[in-house]
Structure formats: structure tokens, C-alpha cells
């Protein structure tokens, strides 16, 4: 074995060690577990080798505690000595000779391609059996210790190398993240809480551009927008390098797609997804947590670069004429460089990345509709009828500075800046609840931490950071207000509710201390303070939201329109917290942890101005609401290895934790204080695209009021599982999860009339006077209001809840040539959170069904995705160093949806056409839908059940082939080819309309106006994907130099 080119103290421990050494590389970012780790000591590091006898290897093996990797060490492969492969193992100790558990040891082939990671067990051992001969870099990133980097390690066939690693620098950070292992997903499950994906996964596997989401979605319990366990993505908090990074949120969209990773992928060292808050130090997410760590151990000074390119999609869905689309260019380029400012103790890392991704989108308007719209401005028409191009660009940079002023202290700074934009050439994206919109975003994040051991066993850490996010959403077609044509079901122009500006700036400061009590465990405690400044502005219906029956009605100016003033609010929220956690290992193999956290969140007490007219009218003061929220949460976990042999581990965890008050709710309550007016009009005199609504439409003030019990959401979680190694390198895990979240904010319109005026043919109450205009049926402009001088008056009450139950089963196999990972999650999510995923205030309103229906809201959640499968494989080609083939496959059930009326039908006459639920016709009236849709058969003769039908499932297969090209200019080079989205699944906008209004028949009113019959007809296109949104298959080729 050769260890060469390393710095630091070198211990030559064997004949084959020509040079040896490990460098003290710069900082780690991961924080150490609070668990009963060995008390940290200052140490001089270092590396060692030796040719080891098989007998010695087998003596080491049984002591291993971590399942997978140690399992590989402890069983068959080492029993027989191979002459083809080599084996590397060792013990990580601190300077006093105590083993250091939970240290990540990485063995990376210098030629590229193979990166393996092992985690030391409680006895500090690690092992890499069956390593292919070649040149490797070995490095250790001990959580709580300075990283250790060895330059080069040459292995020949038959080598059995033992490298004891001594980690330097014994000033552990105080924070515990409850993830103990890196590099093996299964091993990570030895402690409850989540799934961690390490650098190897990030590097080798193909992802499109949604790096973070794509990576996290491999857990099979998160989606690629970071939504988890049946909650929207906005309830997941991203923690980067130990501090949360918040993104400014769109004022009305709860589940916008989180495509960006904020950070250059080249510096992401690991990503972890948690459902259960793994540490009492964390707060703010009633959903889950995704954490990422930026790299600490790079291969010393030097640079690495990667770039890739692609043109048009290879092929796409039938609806998209690729010949008609313009040329497309997608690329990704990134690099990282490291500088040793002071050898071994001070290092600077910088990285940057540029990404552009262009996709074609189907045109808004087909040839037939184009003819019917003849008469519009020709340029407008051309833009609507042309395929558009979506362009996502992102430029990110990151700098990381680490220094150790002394053996007892360390200082760490990290700054990141990302600019991203999403633009459209042409008419832009199609409207869908989660559709992307034009956006520019700037995000930054600064983190620093100072850590000092003030005496043995007692460590203090001060951690603080500032992050900011500034985002602007604009309509893709700024000059065209939204116009919906009900008969064809097509939207022209902008997407209603999109234009918005939103920004937030967060400052957080956490002082904390950790005290090791030796065999009695460890205690951690601390304080936290954070403040968030929010500035939000939105124009719900901007220049107007128009609905027309068809193209002729549009040209004629007959239809429905509404408009709204811009709403804006700026406010600051603050939170103070204190936390304590105790971890102990009462007996070998049994680990217990309990923690509690108290916090106090404060929102401005004077957010909205008092709406006096409303107070006089209703007796409700909109400036009276709770403004401070004390709360206490906690967690407890147990992890038990019954045989203490590292092959089986049982775990359970329960927690109660709180999210923050949703800033969107505050924005509404503060901005809609009576000064924002809306108008609606049904009839003629509309002008589109000029955006004019007749002046006779009354402009009425709107309000939003926080209820007297307003409070942040709270999640209660319980999970339990088992991990078992069933053979060498092969392990399985099974885990069950339960979550109940309370106090989700729901919406009611306080201006709903106290009683209906009539009933429709489904015996459903109708609250306003209906008027019909072709295929539109809506309440007339000025009625359906309890207080006619006000428009919508929202009550926001935290009476929503959501429950999720899931079982995940997974299998993992790791060997020298092949890594396999697969997981299947079956889950069920129910809630009463109407319209949670629909990005429209109106859609959150109760549909006002007859009493016999019961509580219609309690049903399958908008976010219920019962089945998720993820699988990945990495195949290494030993005969061609640096060559790998990696593939990922993801499957998810389709999203649930409710059979509806065609948009533009206000069957309950309450002034909203987003909350109307049809009566499902009898089986013999369903026509072909009866055979095609089981969900309709099951509920015919009743009102459509919320989320009772489901759209098509999604499949995603991507492959990355990396070919080692040897050395190029002194650097390793690799060529890679990525095939993305190789399975075309039927994704797109679904026609959710079961019933539509017969445009040619009249409304009939009978019984002295008490019964109104809306002429309806079945929509034969129900459930079909009417607008495909798949971006097509893509082939990307790239070059990687270094790394």
C-alpha cells in the first residue's frame, strides 16, 4: 500500500507504506450526535497502515456495531482472502486512544467513479472489503472532529490494509443531528428519524435540475418538492450546515415547486430527510426537515470542474410538435476549488455552478380554437398558438472558510448566493394548481459558528446566521389577463393569482452547551432567538380574471369577470426558545434520548388597521387576534440492538413539535384589512385583453381575520421500525409512521348569507341569484352576501387537521461492484384541509352540501400519494477505472382529485366557482365513464366525494453513465451521459370536470324561485389529461475533470 502526498503527521506502519499521511482538512459541517459518544479529546492524528492477517480482520469484525458496512466486514468476504480485490479497514481513535464512533470514512477512487463510505461503530472500526485495486483517497469526517484527509492510497490485489485513523482536534460541536451514518442508507436507519444520502449518491446518480428535491425524493416518503407525509412542501424546513434556510413563499401558493437546491451541487456532501424532528434544537417545521451539509473534506488544494450539455428533447408526447419548437439548450457547469491558507488548520473552499434547462411546452391554443378567436390582435393570437419554451436558469456560488485558532476552538463561516429565474418564451405555462410561473429569485445564506471547549467534557458553541430570499413572480404573459373559456376548458393569458413579490430575511442565533457525563450520558442545552422579516405583495386577479363561455363570447365581451386591488404587507415575527436533551446508553446496544423544547413566538399585534366599517357592521374587530404563542414540545427515542451484534436494531421515536405561524396567513390578515377592494361582474361589456370590467361593478372591500384561537400547526409523530442485516451486504428495513397535525388554518367566508335563497336540482342550497351566460353559471354580481357592502371576508381558523400513516419497507445491497437500493412506502393521508393544494382562496371554502352528506371536508388529503417506490442501482466497472452506470427509478401514485363542475359553474351560488361539488349521475347515466372510472361507479347517486378519484401515476427513470477517461492535464477526467425522464408517463393537467353546463339550454326557476335547475351535461373528457406537461425525454452529455 502506498500513502502518498499527504501532509500532517505520518506514521509509517508497514512495509508497503511508502509515504503516509492524512491532512487535517477543513471543517466539517455535520454536527455530532448528542448520543453517548466517547468524550472528545485533543489528538494528533493519523494514518497508519498495515498488511493485516485475515485472522486479525476477523477479530475486528464482531465488534462492529453498524449494520451494513460492518456486516460486510464481519461476514463472508473477509473469511476468504481475495487476490483480486483489496481490503481496507481500521479503527478511528482520538488522541487518547479511545475509539471514535460515527466517523465517516470515505474511500474514493482517484480515477473517479468509486466512492465508498463507511461509518465507524461504537468501537471505532470501519472497513472497506473488496476494494478494487487502484489508487484511492481515504478521508475521515468525524462528526465533531476535524476532517482528516489522506492523499493517495494505492491498493494492489490481495492487499489487506489496516489503517488506524486518529482524528485530530477534539472540540466537538454541541449540536446533535440524529443521523449516525453516511453512505449507507440502511445504516442510517439504525437511529430513528430519517434517511440520509451522502456524497456518493449525490455525485453518481442522475438528477435533472431539481437537485435537492430529486435527491430527497429517493427516500420514497418525500416528494420532489420536499413535501412529506401528506403535507405540502412549504411545511418542510431546509437546514443547511446546521441552520435553517428559509425561502420566501408565494403569498397564496402552498405547494410551489421547490426546484432549486440553493447550493452548488458540487459542494453538497450529504442530504438528509427527516420526518421526525431529530433534535430538540430544531423548530419551525410541522412537516419534515431536509438537511444538507456542504462538503468539508475535499482533496486538498485543487480544482474540479464538470459541465454537461443537451439540446432538444429526444422525443416527447404526441401533443408536442418538436419540429415546431425552437432550438433548445440545456447545460450544467460547475466547479469547486480548495485553498489551504494555513496548512491543516485554515482552509477556504469555493464552488459555483450554472444551470440552464430549457423545455418545450405545448401551445395554449390549437388550430380550431385559433380560427374561432379570429378577431383578436394577430400578435396575441400567434403567441398563444405557438409552443412556448420554459427556461430555468440558476447561478449559485458558495464559499466556506474554516480555521482552528487552537486545539480547543474552531471557527467556521459559510456563505452562499443563488440567483435563479424561470422564464417563458411564448404564452407560458398552463394553469394548474402547482404550475410553475415566471419567477426570479435571489437567495443568500450566511452561517458562522464558534466552538470552544472550555474544560474537559464541557463545550460551548455559538452559532448564528442570516439568510434572505427575494422572489418576484410575474405573469408569463404580462399583457394578457387571465381568460378562461369554459366550453373548451382552456385558459388564455396569465394564471390568476400569480403576480407577487415576496421576500424574507431571517436572522438566527443559538448559544448552547454540551456536557458529557461519561457513562451517565450527555446533556445538551441551549437557547435560540430568531427573527424573520417578511415583505409580501400580490395582485390576486391582477388586471382581471375573466371567464367566457367560448371564443365567441370572448370576442363579444359577454361573461364573468372579477378584479382585485393589490394587497401588501410587511411584518416581522420573532421566536425565542430554550431546549434541553439528555442521551444515555444504559446498557450495550440500548440508546435512549429524551428532550424538550419550549418556545415563544410573537407576531405583530398591530398588523392590520382596524376596519371600522366592518366592526360596526359585524361586531368583529379585525385587529384583535392572538399575537403570542407559547408552546412546549419534545421528543423521545429508543434504539435497541438486542444482541448487541450490530445485525439487528429496533427503534422507536415519538415527538410533538410545532411549525411557525404560516406567514401567508399573516399576510392575508394584515393586508386585507378593508383597504383592498374587489369587484365582480356577470354580463356584457367585458373587454379582453384590454382588461376592462364595466364601471357598474361595485368595488367592495375585502377582509381576512385571524380567528380567536389562531395558532401555529402542531405535529405529533410516532414511528417504529427495525433494520436487519440478512446476509453480507444485504439488509432490509421496515418502518411504520404515524403523524397527526393539528391547527392547520382553514378558511370560511363570513360574508356568506345566513340562509340560502333556493335549492338546485341536487337539493343543494343556493345562496345567490344564479345567472347563466352560455356555459357559465354564476351568482349575479351583487348578491350572495350577508353584508352587501363588503366583498369576501375570510375567517382563518386553525381547525384543520391531517393524519398520515405509512409503512416503508426497503432493501439495500452494497458490494464492490454493485449497489442496489429500493424502498416502497404505502401510506394513507386524510385531512379536512379543503383546497390545500389548489392555490386559490375560493377553493378552500366548504362546498355547502346538504346536511345528510356530513362533513364533506373529512376525506382523502390533496397530498395523499398512497404508493411510492424508489429504486437505484450503481454498477461499477472494475476493468475500466472511473466507469459507472447508475440509474434511479421512482414511481408515485397519481394525485387525488375531486370530480367537479367545469370551472365557471357556481352551483351553490355562493360567489365562488372553485368550491362546487356535483352530484354524480346514476350508473346508467354515466355512459362510458361508468366503465372507465371505478371512483365514479362507487359514488354514483351521491355528491362527489372529496379527492375520490386519482390521476395517472408517475414514473421516472433516469440513467447516468460515467466513463473514466484517465488523466487530462494532470486531472482525472470522465465523460458522462445522462438519459433523463426515460419513461414517458401521462402527466399533465387533468380535466376534473364531471359535469358541465349545457350552453344552449336555460336556467329554469320554479316554486316561486325556490328551486333552480341548472342545465347540465356529462363531460365525456372527465379525467383525461387534457394538457400534457411532460417535458420529454432528454439526453445530456458532459465532462468532468478532477474530483
Amino acid at each position, binding site marked *: 500500500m502506498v500513502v502518498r502526498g499527504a501532509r500532517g503527521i505520518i506514521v509509517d506502519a508497514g512495509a508497503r507504506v511508502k509515504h503516509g499521511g492524512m491532512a487535517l482538512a477543513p471543517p466539517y459541517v455535520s454536527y455530532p450526535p448528542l448520543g453517548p459518544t466517547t468524550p472528545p479529546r485533543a489528538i494528533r492524528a493519523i494514518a497508519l497502515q498495515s498488511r493485516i492477517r485475515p485472522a486479525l480482520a476477523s477479530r475486528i469484525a464482531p465488534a462492529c456495531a453498524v449494520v451494513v458496512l460492518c456486516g460486510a466486514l464481519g461476514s463472508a468476504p473477509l473469511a476468504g482472502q481475495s487476490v483480486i480485490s483489496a481490503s481496507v479497514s481500521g479503527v478511528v481513535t482520538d488522541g487518547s486512544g479511545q475509539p471514535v464512533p460515527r466517523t465517516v470514512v470515505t474511500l474514493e477512487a482517484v480515477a473517479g467513479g468509486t466512492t465508498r463510505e463507511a461509518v465507524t461503530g461504537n468501537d471505532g472500526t470501519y472497513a472497506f472489503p473488496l476494494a478494487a485495486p487502484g489508487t484511492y483517497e481515504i478521508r475521515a469526517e468525524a462528526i465533531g472532529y476535524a476532517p482528516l484527509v489522506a492523499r493517495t492510497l494505492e491498493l494492489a490485489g490481495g492487499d489487506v490494509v489496516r489503517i488506524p485513523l486518529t482524528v485530530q482536534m477534539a472540540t466537538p460541536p454541541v449540536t446533535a443531528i440524529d443521523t449516525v451514518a453516511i453512505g449507507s442508507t440502511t445504516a442510517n436507519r439504525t437511529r430513528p428519524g430519517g434517511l440520509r444520502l451522502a456524497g456518493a449518491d449525490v455525485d453518481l446518480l442522475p438528477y435533472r435540475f431539481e437537485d435537492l428535491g430529486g435527491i430527497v425524493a429517493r427516500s420514497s416518503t418525500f416528494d420532489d418538492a420536499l413535501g412529506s407525509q401528506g403535507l405540502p412542501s412549504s411545511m418542510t424546513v431546509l437546514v443547511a450546515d446546521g441552520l435553517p434556510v428559509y425561502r420566501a413563499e408565494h403569498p397564496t401558493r402552498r405547494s410551489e415547486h421547490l426546484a432549486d437546491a440553493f447550493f452548488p451541487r458540487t459542494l453538497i456532501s450529504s442530504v438528509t430527510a427527516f420526518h421526525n424532528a431529530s433534535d430538540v434544537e430544531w423548530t419551525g417545521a410541522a412537516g419534515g426537515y431536509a438537511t444538507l451539509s456542504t462538503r468539508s473534506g475535499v482533496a486538498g488544494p485543487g480544482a474540479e470542474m464538470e459541465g454537461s450539455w443537451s439540446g432538444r428533447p429526444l422525443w416527447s408526447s404526441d401533443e408536442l410538435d418538436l419540429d415546431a419548437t425552437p432550438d433548445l439548450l440545456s447545460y450544467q457547469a460547475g466547479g469547486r476549488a480548495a485553498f489551504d491558507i494555513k496548512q491543516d488548520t485554515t482552509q477556504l473552499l469555493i464552488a459555483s455552478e450554472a444551470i440552464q434547462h430549457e423545455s418545450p411546452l405545448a401551445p395554449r391554443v390549437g388550430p380550431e380554437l385559433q380560427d374561432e378567436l379570429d378577431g383578436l390582435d394577430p400578435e396575441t393570437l400567434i403567441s398563444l398558438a405557438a409552443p412556448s419554451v420554459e427556461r430555468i436558469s440558476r447561478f449559485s456560488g458558495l464559499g466556506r472558510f474554516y480555521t482552528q485558532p487552537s486545539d480547543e476552538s474552531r471557527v467556521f463561516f459559510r456563505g452562499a448566493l443563488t440567483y435563479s429565474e424561470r422564464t417563458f418564451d411564448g404564452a407560458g405555462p398552463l394553469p394548474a394548481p402547482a404550475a410553475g410561473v415566471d419567477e426570479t429569485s435571489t437567495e443568500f445564506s450566511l452561517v458562522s459558528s464558534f466552538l470552544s471547549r472550555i474544560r474537559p467534557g464541557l463545550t460551548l458553541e455559538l452559532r448564528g446566521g442570516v439568510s434572505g430570499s427575494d422572489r418576484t413572480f410575474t405573469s408569463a404573459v404580462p399583457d394578457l389577463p387571465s381568460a378562461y373559456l369554459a366550453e373548451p376548458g382552456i385558459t388564455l393569458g396569465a394564471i390568476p393569482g400569480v403576480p407577487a413579490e415576496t421576500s424574507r430575511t431571517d436572522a438566527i442565533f443559538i448559544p448552547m452547551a454540551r456536557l458529557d457525563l461519561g457513562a451517565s450520558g450527555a446533556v445538551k442545552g441551549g437557547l435560540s432567538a430568531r427573527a424573520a422579516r417578511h415583505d409580501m405583495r400580490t395582485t390576486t386577479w391582477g388586471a382581471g380574471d375573466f371567464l367566457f363561455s367560448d371564443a365567441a363570447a370572448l370576442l363579444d365581451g359577454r361573461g364573468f369577470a372579477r378584479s382585485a386591488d393589490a394587497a401588501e404587507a410587511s411584518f416581522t415575527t420573532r421566536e425565542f426558545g430554550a431546549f434541553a436533551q439528555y442521551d444515555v446508553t444504559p446498557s450495550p446496544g440500548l440508546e435512549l434520548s429524551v428532550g424538550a423544547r419550549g418556545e415563544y413566538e410573537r407576531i405583530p399585534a398591530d398588523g392590520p388597521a382596524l376596519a371600522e366599517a366592518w366592526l360596526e357592521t359585524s361586531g368583529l374587530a379585525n385587529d384583535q387576534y392572538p399575537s403570542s404563542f407559547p408552546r412546549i414540545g419534545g421528543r423521545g427515542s429508543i434504539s435497541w440492538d438486542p444482541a448487541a451484534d450490530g445485525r439487528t436494531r429496533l427503534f422507536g421515536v415519538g415527538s410533538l413539535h410545532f411549525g411557525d405561524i404560516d406567514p401567508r396567513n399573516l399576510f392575508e390578515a394584515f393586508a386585507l384589512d378593508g383597504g383592498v377592494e374587489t369587484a365582480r361582474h356577470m354580463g356584457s361589456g367585458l373587454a379582453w385583453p384590454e382588461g376592462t370590467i364595466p364601471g357598474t361593478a361595485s368595488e367592495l372591500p375585502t377582509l381576512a381575520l385571524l380567528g380567536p384561537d389562531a395558532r401555529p400547526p402542531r405535529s405529533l409523530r410516532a414511528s417504529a421500525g427495525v433494520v436487519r442485516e440478512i446476509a453480507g451486504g444485504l439488509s432490509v428495513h421496515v418502518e411504520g409512521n404515524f403523524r397527526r397535525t393539528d391547527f392547520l388554518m382553514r378558511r370560511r367566508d363570513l360574508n356568506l348569507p345566513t340562509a340560502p*335563497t333556493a335549492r338546485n336540482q341536487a337539493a343543494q342550497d343556493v345562496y345567490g341569484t344564479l345567472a347563466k351566460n352560455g356555459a357559465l353559471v354564476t351568482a349575479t354580481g351583487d348578491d350572495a352576501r350577508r353584508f352587501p357592502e363588503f366583498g369576501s371576508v375570510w375567517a382563518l381558523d386553525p*381547525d384543520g*387537521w391531517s393524519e398520515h*400513516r405509512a409503512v416503508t419497507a426497503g432493501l439495500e445491497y452494497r458490494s464492490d461492484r454493485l449497489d442496489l437500493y429500493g424502498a416502497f412506502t404505502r401510506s394513507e393521508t386524510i385531512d379536512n384541509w379543503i383546497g390545500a393544494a389548489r392555490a386559490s382562496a375560493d377553493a378552500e371554502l366548504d362546498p355547502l352540501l346538504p346536511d345528510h352528506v356530513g362533513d364533506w371536508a373529512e376525506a382523502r388529503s390533496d397530498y395523499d400519494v398512497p404508493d411510492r417506490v424508489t429504486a437505484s442501482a450503481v454498477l461499477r466497472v472494475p476493468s475500466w477505472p472511473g466507469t459507472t452506470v447508475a440509474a434511479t427509478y421512482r414511481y408515485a401514485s397519481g394525485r387525488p382529485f375531486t370530480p367537479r363542475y367545469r370551472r365557471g359553474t357556481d352551483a351553490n351560488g355562493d360567489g365562488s366557482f372553485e368550491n362546487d361539488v356535483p352530484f354524480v349521475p346514476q350508473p346508467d347515466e354515466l355512459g362510458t365513464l361508468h366503465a372507465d372510472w371505478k371512483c365514479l361507479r362507487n359514488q354514483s347517486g351521491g355528491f362527489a366525494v372529496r379527492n375520490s378519484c386519482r390521476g395517472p401515476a408517475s414514473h421516472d427513470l433516469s440513467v447516468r453513465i460515467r466513463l473514466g477517461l484517465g488523466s487530462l492535464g494532470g486531472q482525472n477526467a470522465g465523460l458522462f451521459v445522462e438519459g433523463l425522464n426515460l419513461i414517458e408517463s401521462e402527466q399533465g393537467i387533468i380535466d376534473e370536470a364531471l359535469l358541465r353546463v349545457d350552453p344552449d339550454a336555460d336556467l329554469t326557476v320554479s316554486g316561486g324561485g325556490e328551486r333552480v335547475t341548472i342545465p347540465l351535461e356529462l363531460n365525456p373528457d372527465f379525467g383525461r389529461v387534457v394538457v400534457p406537461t411532460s417535458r420529454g425525454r432528454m439526453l445530456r452529455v458532459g465532462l468532468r475533470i478532477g474530483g
Partner: protein
Amino acid sequence: MDAMERWRSALGRAGGGFWTCAILAVALGACTDATDVERLEISASGAVAGQAYLDLNGNETADGPDDPVADASVVLTAAAGGTSVIETETDAEGLFVFEEVPVGTYTVTLAEDVLGDSLLAVDEAEPFQVTMDTANEVVLGATYPELPIEEVREAEPGRRVFTSGIALNPRQSFSDGRVFLEGEEAYLQATDVGRTPAVAVGDSVRFLGRTARRDGRPALDDVTPIILIPQARVPVPREISTGDAATAGGGPLDAALVRIRSAEVSDTMTVEATGDFHFTADDGSGPVEVVLRAFLGFPVQPDEEDVVSQAVGLLAPYDDGSGNVRWRLLVRSASEFGLEP
């Protein structure tokens, strides 16, 4: 759905609450959940009070002869939604009150069964706003429908209605209290007209009465008179031939004030019971029976072959004994009858 139901029943709301309490009872508020949330509700209320009256003088104002509507149901209805009703009863004075009315927009009306088929609300129910801690006052009038004479003539018998016109005779012209009315395009005889106020010729009057038939023709019976404008207009008789008078111009001139001229007298007789003098007049177009009622004190009685120079009177229908309706000319006063010398 079955699976969902099972889940829900097993670990539904109650289950969630149980878990919450059981696992982390130390946590503040952990035992409450979303189902316990106090929701924002509009609880403010105001009051609505008022009086109901029967508008007997048809002036749409509670005054004069109008009666309170006692023990009648009054209905409060949410204006923006028609079917929510709260009812209360009026007292003997017609007074009613709704307390604790949730704020909102309402209308108040007399119940349908109070109005029945014949009464109408005086005013259309106007929506009004009930605001916090304020009392709204509402006066509810019930009245009979006012029909023009043309419609009264078409109405089925037995309806109480108002109608208006110009009185063509004073009440005392007839011993049975008959008053003939002239409308825009038709005439009507009213019977049993109240004595007060005393109706005089030319008064613009409103009569409240019951539709009826008299001698086979429409009439308004049991009439309460209201004089709107005394001596509003001198009614002008219609010039008519005797032949047309006998048929009331084919019907349209039933109860009209008409004048005949130059008609030869025949068939004279005195009715013993009343002393009224009846004769037939014919100007060549056909005969018409003319009546000179005794109590009007005619200075002359025509003989056969006299010629009536002019006679002004009211065309009153009668049954000629064979089931046919014919009209008599009831001369209005002695001064309106003359013979050619």
C-alpha cells in the same frame, strides 16, 4: 373508501387526541386538537321592532281609521338568502319585536297567512341592515289591492279591493246608498256606500268594497268611501241615443252618466211601492226606460207623446224578466230633466 373509513374509525379524531395526550401529556395544550378550536363567528346582534296596521284608507300610512293588526305573525327573513325566517306575533296594538337578531341584512313582512289572498303589503319589503346593538324600527302596513275600475269590473265577486274614480252621484241619490263611479275607461256602480263621509258629485273618491254582481252586472258592495279630493271634477254626461242607452252601448256604458235628447215618451206608469215614475223614451233609435225617482221631486211628469228635450242620468242594469239585462236611465236630479214645450 372502506379502508379510509376503517382508518378513520380506528384512529380518527378521538384517536389523535388520545395519542397526543398519552404520549406527551406534559406538553401544554397537548390534549386539545383542531376539533376543539374556537372559531371566529359573528355573534353581534341587534333588535328589530315595529307595528303592523291595516291600511283602511288606502293612503299607505298608519293614520286615521287604520286598525292595528293584532295577533298576526310577522316574519324576519335574511335578505341575502330567502328562506331563513324567524316569526313573532303582534300584540293587540299591532306591536312586535325581534330581539337578538344576528347582524346582517334582513327584510320583515307580515306572514303570508295574515295577508291571505286579499291583503297586500303596503310597501315592498326593503332590505335593511341590522347592526350591532341597535334597534331597527319597521312599520308594516297591510292593505287591500287597489284596482282600476276596469279591473274591478273583471274581478271575481267577493274580493275586497280599493278602487278610485269620480263620483257621478251623491250617495243620497239612491235610497240604497248607491254611488256610480267614473273611471278612466269604464264605470262602476257601488252599493251600500257608507254614509260618512258624504260623497258628492264630482268628488274624487277611493272606495274600499267587495266585488259583487248586481242585476247581472259588476258592482262594488259594502263600500267604505274615502274622499280624496272634494269636487275634483264635474262629470260630463255621454251623449247617447236611446237605443244605445237601453243596451249601455253594448255593455261598456254600464253605470255611465249619459244624456239623451229629443225622445218621445210612451208607456208611462207610476210604481206604486216607491212612487217612482217610469216611462219609455225613444229618439227613433229604439226605446229606453227612464226612471224619475219620486223622492227627487220632479216638478213635471211627462205624458205619452211628450218629447223629452233632454235627460241626464245613470245607466242602471236590470233584468227584463226574460233573463236579459237591459239598462234604465235613472235621472240624476230634477234639474237635469226637461220636456219640450
